């Protein structure tokens, strides 16, 4: 049974470009929301781009449009110099995709899942080799339903690696995993990157973005609100450090009082604690201690740290990256 789309196409010569993925003016609307509202996004070859954003920011919608799974309502996408309308199969042969919520058939064994996915591609890796890469060799005969969350996620990434892709798309690959499982997955991704692979990943985790990404896009309500390398993003904050503490029993200072301090840039509450982004750390701490002595305040759990992407994010959106 042949269909029009089944005719093999000679791979069209890819235009010379160092962009693996390029998107211009992407828009996706749903009945009651504009999920993606005019996003431009480029991924250079052999780099890792991280897309950060809170729940519902439009990360999945964006990445799925780039993967050719959703049609944008407006905008242009090229992947490896090709467009989804023209060279669909050709692109698919050369990218690897892990979806945020894809389940495999429960009663399939690890190697059966890999063998199935391998059969879709003309060229690719050996499944034993992939099992080695994702560290599931001992689990080759285990049912999918008996795998831990981390193992299942690695299998999912393994399926995305089967065709030796040029680009790897990962949608929240480590959400819900414990730190150890998360690190194991990072190793797989770093290994792929070390071999010259290009990665586009979405995440809620700053740590993940800082560790893996060369370039970060911060999304909120379907728009890119900041973009740059982790360092340059932190630099835009203009803060030297972040000072964090809680008031113990007794008196406390209000947010206004604190922002009146010399060298304080911004103040916010995070649960019980106060978080200050500051320009001159030492001065601010000195003022805090003065106030504590004169006004009889109890300072608990005082910490300072360098600004993180989380701080950048919060200062830009007033929201934390995760709901919890």
């Amino acid at each position, binding site marked *: 049974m042949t269909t029009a789309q089944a005719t093999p196409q000679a791979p069209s010569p890819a235009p010379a470009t160092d962009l693996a993925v390029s998107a211009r003016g992407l828009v996706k609307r749903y009945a009651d929301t504009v999920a993606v509202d005019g996003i431009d996004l480029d991924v250079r070859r052999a780099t890792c781009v991280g897309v950060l954003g809170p729940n519902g920011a439009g990360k999945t919608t964006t990445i799925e449009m780039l993967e050719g799974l959703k049609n944008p309502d407006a905008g242009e996408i090229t992947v490896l110099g090709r467009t989804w309308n023209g060279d669909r199969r050709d692109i*698919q042969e050369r990218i690897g995709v892990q979806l945020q919520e894809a389940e495999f*058939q429960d009663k399939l064994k690890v190697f059966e899942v890999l063998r199935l996915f391998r059969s879709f*591609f003309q060229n690719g890796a050996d499944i034993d080799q992939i099992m080695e890469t994702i560290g599931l060799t001992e689990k080759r005969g285990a049912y999918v339903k008996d795998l831990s969350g981390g193992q299942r996620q690695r299998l999912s990434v393994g399926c995305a690696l089967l065709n030796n892709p040029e680009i790897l798309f990962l949608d929240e690959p480590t959400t819900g995993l414990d730190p150890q499982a998360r690190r194991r997955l990072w190793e797989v991704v770093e290994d792929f990157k070390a071999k010259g692979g290009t990665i586009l990943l979405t995440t809620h985790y700053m740590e993940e973005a800082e560790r893996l990404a060369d370039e970060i896009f911060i999304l909120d309500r379907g728009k890119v609100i900041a973009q740059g390398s982790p360092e340059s993003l932190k630099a835009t904050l203009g803060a030297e450090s972040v000072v964090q503490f809680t008031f113990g029993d007794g008196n406390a200072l209000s947010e206004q009082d604190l922002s009146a301090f010399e060298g304080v840039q911004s103040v916010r509450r995070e649960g019980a604690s106060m978080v200050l982004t500051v320009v001159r750390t030492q001065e601010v701490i000195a003022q805090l201690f003065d106030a504590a002595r004169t006004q009889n305040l109890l300072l608990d759990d005082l910490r300072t740290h360098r600004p993180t992407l989380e701080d950048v994010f919060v200062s830009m959106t007033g929201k934390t990256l995760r709901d919890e």
Partner: protein
Amino acid sequence: MNLPEIKELTRVRVLGLLREPEAVFWVFAFPIILAAVLGFAFRSAGVKPSTIGLIEPASQMLTQALESDEQIDLETYPSWDEGFKQLRKGAVDGLIMEGGEADDPPRLAYDEARAEATTARLRVQRALTLAKSPGTDAPIDLEPVTETGSRYIDFLFPGLIGMNLMGTGMWGVGFAIADIRRKKFLRRLLVTPMRKSSFLLSFINSRLVFLFLELILLTSFGVWVLGIPFRGGLIAYLLICLLGAMLFSGLGILVASRARTIEGVSGIMNLVMMPMWLASGVFFSYERFPDWLHPILQLLPLTAVNDALRAVMLDGESLATQIPELIVMGVWAILCFVVALKIFRWE
């Protein structure tokens, strides 16, 4: 065509099914059991005696005449009213009592609309005639037909095979697709270069893997246990079943191609299967419908399958004589598959 991917998709389907014992039961064992039970139930559709209610008191002659007839079971009631209640319920096929005056003939009440009652009437009449003047039975040589091939069960069995091809094909495929939809697995496949036709074909293929197992079980049950004659060629029979199975799994894909839920699938499934259950000659010949309807009924997929199976099994016809039926089946198979491929809801 990408053969490795068709092979792997099929293998995964088959494994998935084999590893769900419940699914195996409902999809495969259940239809076989159903066919077996129906087959058994209709196997000895031997003549049932008529039950006649007799109102007491009655003359000895009348009682004896009825009692001596082996095709009549006699029940007695003390009053007409009492007996009439049983007649109304259908517990007796006819109700008889002595006439009022000495010479009056007995009175027989029966429901003209019931075939059993008409039979009962004839039997009572014959019993009474014979009692009056023995040896006056009609001058006909009676030849009860016991030859295999012309009993009801012989007619029924190919219909059951057809029904089974339809039920198993459609439920098996329809549910499998609904189940895959539920799991969001489909989206994962869509970001690979997998051909959509391979995916849909794998459902038909996995159906065919089980088909032969099923056919061997069902057919040997029919032939060895029920004594159904098998007059035509085995190859012809298998080819018809094969085409039938492909056709019905194609129809199953089509039915499941838009529905989002299992409930949706079963609804449409019933809507599609019910008319064929009734009008495609499973339990009774579609000849019973008005003549003008026959050409239309013959275009139904199950009618074509049943007609071809009967012709081959019972009449020993060759495949060549079944070309029109085969064309109907083939056209349905291709049509369903192509339309399903067009309208299938992948997201």
